[in-house]
């Protein structure tokens, strides 16, 4: 039975393994046919930044393609596309105050600006909410 789950993320990209665990969980939730809502708070608002670019690795002599450096924005895009393909609700909300503090307003399509009030609504409308706190 399809349910709705909410995830609150707080970590900025490229810093913690919590981010990849969170993405794995969200992907599994969609694969299982659940609707997903994500509230990105604090540094996590930088996860879907539009201008993230993969890079080469000069130290190891690898090109951009060989390095295959992951960008979190592509992971967010992949989740949005997966939800679309499965016809499941998916909502990614970036905390507006956190966005303004970081000048992080240029995000990929499918991400919207909101406030902690959105998180409250998401929580009320979900069977469960997982808060993944930063340390």
């Amino acid at each position, binding site marked *: 039975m399809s349910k709705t*789950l909410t995830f609150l993320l707080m970590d900025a990209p490229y810093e913690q*393994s919590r981010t990849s*665990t969170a993405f794995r969980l969200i992907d*599994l*939730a969609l694969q299982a046919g*659940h609707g997903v809502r994500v509230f990105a708070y604090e540094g996590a608002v930088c996860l879907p930044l539009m201008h993230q670019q993969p890079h080469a690795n000069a130290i190891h002599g690898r090109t951009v393609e060989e390095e295959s450096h992951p960008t979190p924005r592509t992971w967010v895009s992949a989740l949005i596309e997966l939800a679309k393909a499965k016809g499941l609700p998916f909502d990614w909300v970036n905390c507006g105050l956190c966005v303004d503090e970081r000048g992080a307003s240029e995000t990929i399509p499918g991400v919207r600006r909101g406030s902690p009030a959105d998180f409250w609504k998401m929580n009320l409308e979900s*069977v*469960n909410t*997982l808060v993944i706190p930063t340390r």
Partner: protein
Amino acid sequence: MSGYLLIESRDPFESKGFAQHCELALTLLGEGNSVTLFLVENAVLAARAAAKARDLDKLAKAGVRVLADKFALHERGIDARQVIAAVEPAELNALLAHLADGAKTLWN
């Protein structure tokens, strides 16, 4: 009776939070709740027999179900044969199932 899902992500040798989470699991169990402790990321280091971490044995004997993320074990080169009997290697899907069932969930 409520179902609790405690997710532990911290290295037991780096953070007192691990032991405190184990204490919380026992307290919740003592109050008549069912409790599952799911180890992810560096917390799976406690599942190695060589780690001699007694907290997990104590939890399992008391009735807490202890699961460890297979992906995290694999990432750290921990073979299933190195994992203590008190801990059950599991896919992350098991954690998701608890969430979808509405377990009260706390991430450390």
